């Protein structure tokens, strides 16, 4: 049985890979993907703001401060989702070798987004628990009224 050396096979596959996917093409493809995902994140955040404003206008005639918590919850969920998309685009940006300058900016933005996403998720959870508690207590409160 005649075999080929593993090093030779690896060199051949690298040559094919280089020919099939040059760095410029990879860079351009990743850049397009980054822009698309970043735009999706921004669109979700903007959509969340629009939905929250519409919801605010709908609950405004009731003049109930508790309803504003629901509006904030809706907005918070959109913001968290948008931040996830933007973090995904940050991770994609590291796929092609960036410069130290780009890497520094990327790290700063990613750190801000990660921290915000963490606090936002925690706040959403707390607000949801508060809303659930209010809903559970509301029937008993109305039942105690004279």
């Amino acid at each position, binding site marked *: 049985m005649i075999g080929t050396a593993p090093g030779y096979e690896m060199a051949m596959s690298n040559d094919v890979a280089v020919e099939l996917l040059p760095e410029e093409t990879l860079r351009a493809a990743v850049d397009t993907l980054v*822009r698309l995902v*970043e*735009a999706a*994140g*921004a669109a979700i*955040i*903007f959509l*969340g*703001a629009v939905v*929250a*404003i519409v919801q*605010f206008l709908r609950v*405004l005639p009731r*003049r*109930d*401060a508790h309803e*504003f*918590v629901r*509006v*904030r919850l809706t*907005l*918070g969920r*959109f*913001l968290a989702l*948008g*931040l996830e998309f*933007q973090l995904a685009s940050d991770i994609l940006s590291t796929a092609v070798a960036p410069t130290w300058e780009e890497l520094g*900016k990327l790290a*700063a*933005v990613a750190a*801000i*987004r990660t921290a*915000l996403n963490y*606090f936002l998720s925690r*706040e959403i959870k707390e607000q949801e628990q508060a809303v659930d508690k209010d809903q559970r207590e509301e029937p008993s409160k109305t039942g105690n009224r004279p």
Partner: protein
Amino acid sequence: MSHLLSDLSLAVGAAAVVVGAVALAATRDLRAALPLMLDLLLAAGLLRLAASSTWTAIVTAAGLVLIRKVVTWTILRNGAAPLPLHSR
């Protein structure tokens, strides 16, 4: 794309101020109105952060976003303390 994001950020920021003012006028409750306005301003800040590419812009947007989060968090944590405009 950054011009579009900057414009959207500006629009959301302006809407946040209007929503905050209307909410305050409707409920006379600063604890209800201010977090709503700050959350919308946070959305504007995130759009601005997506548009920014220089260090100055990143630091400015990040500072604004963090200040807004801290203020919202402080208002919600100090829920027991009555604020001047709270109707009682």
